[in-house]
């Protein structure tokens, strides 16, 4: 009997080599630089700045100031950055309705009904000589305070973390505890000048 003709085989051993070559190329060029950061909205340029500012009462403003020596001044008091988060939370919530903390106004909010919402605004001021690292640390603490409050309320109300809630519930919480951080117009506060 004659042997059946053999099917010619392609030698695929080298295809692995080629793929490896390409693989190594992409391995080397890959940069997983996922950009992370704190998102902020800048205010649009307004010509008449004074009008908007004079409306806000002093008790409703939480002044956080960072000077050129990177010192933190909160509502006129020197403060360590580790205390800032608690202080900010106290300001935003004003649980005891203290007269020196922000006013509240009644609002109708989905999921919450008629509630009293704080009118507080955080004003972050800095000098031209403040280092960016310190500035972002302060920004981060203020954001953290807001996020912690939101998470706390989400837990109380919906028994879920804020990030796990659907969008409309997140919006409701955002309305319930508005975290407004205003980055002040540039000023020269002193204690060292200009860019170094």
């Amino acid at each position, binding site marked *: 009997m004659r042997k059946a003709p053999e099917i010619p085989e392609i030698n*695929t*051993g080298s*295809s*692995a080599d080629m*793929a*490896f070559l*390409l*693989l190594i190329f*992409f*391995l080397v*060029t*890959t*940069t*997983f*630089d*996922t*950009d*992370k*950061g*704190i*998102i*902020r*909205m*800048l*205010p*649009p*340029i307004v010509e008449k700045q004074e009008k908007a500012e004079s409306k806000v009462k002093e008790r409703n403003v939480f002044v956080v100031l960072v000077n050129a020596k990177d010192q933190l001044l909160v509502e006129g008091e020197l403060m360590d*950055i*580790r205390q800032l988060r608690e202080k900010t939370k106290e300001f935003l919530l004003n649980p005891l309705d203290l007269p020196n903390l922000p006013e509240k106004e009644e609002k109708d909010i989905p999921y919450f009904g008629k509630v009293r919402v704080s009118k507080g605004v955080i004003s972050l001021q*800095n*000098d*031209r*000589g*403040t*280092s*960016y*690292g310190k*500035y*972002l*640390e302060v*920004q*981060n603490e203020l*954001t*953290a305070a807001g*996020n912690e409050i939101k998470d706390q309320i989400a837990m109380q109300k919906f028994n879920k973390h804020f990030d796990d809630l659907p969008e409309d519930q997140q919006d409701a919480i955002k309305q319930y505890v508005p975290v407004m951080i205003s*980055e002040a117009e*540039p000023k020269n506060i002193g204690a060292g000048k*200009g*860019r*170094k």
Partner: protein
Amino acid sequence: MAVFRKKGGRKAKLTLSSMSDIVFMFLFFFMVTTTFRSASLKVRVHVPGATEVKKIENKSLVSYIYIGFPFNVKMYGTEPRIQLNDTFKEVDDIRDFIASERAQKSEADQTKMTVSLKIDKDVKMGIVTDVKQALRRASALKINYSGRKDDSYLK
């Protein structure tokens, strides 16, 4: 010798055909995830640490502004500089930069454009403030302070 030949008559062969499949799988993964760095950095940018950092969702909507200290001290000095795309620029150039970045994006996405500020932690706020004001004037209002996840400053 004869004893050995009897035993080693058959050679065990590994099938290598599946190996290329596996390698190809890796290859495609890296091909898809690769992003070619569009600009080579000319400034040192150590972004500050923060705990509340969030990922930016849509990368194609992001434009980058780098501010840091030049690597080439002899040529560019030790003052912090602004890098847009591949070159050093001044604050006044930001307007044009934003305009050109905006033109590259589709009309629907133009309003969602985010400017990511990659700024070294030792840069003074003076230059940052100038950049922010320039962004406001160019009405690029959504910005991102780039940071990395780190809470060591609280300890």
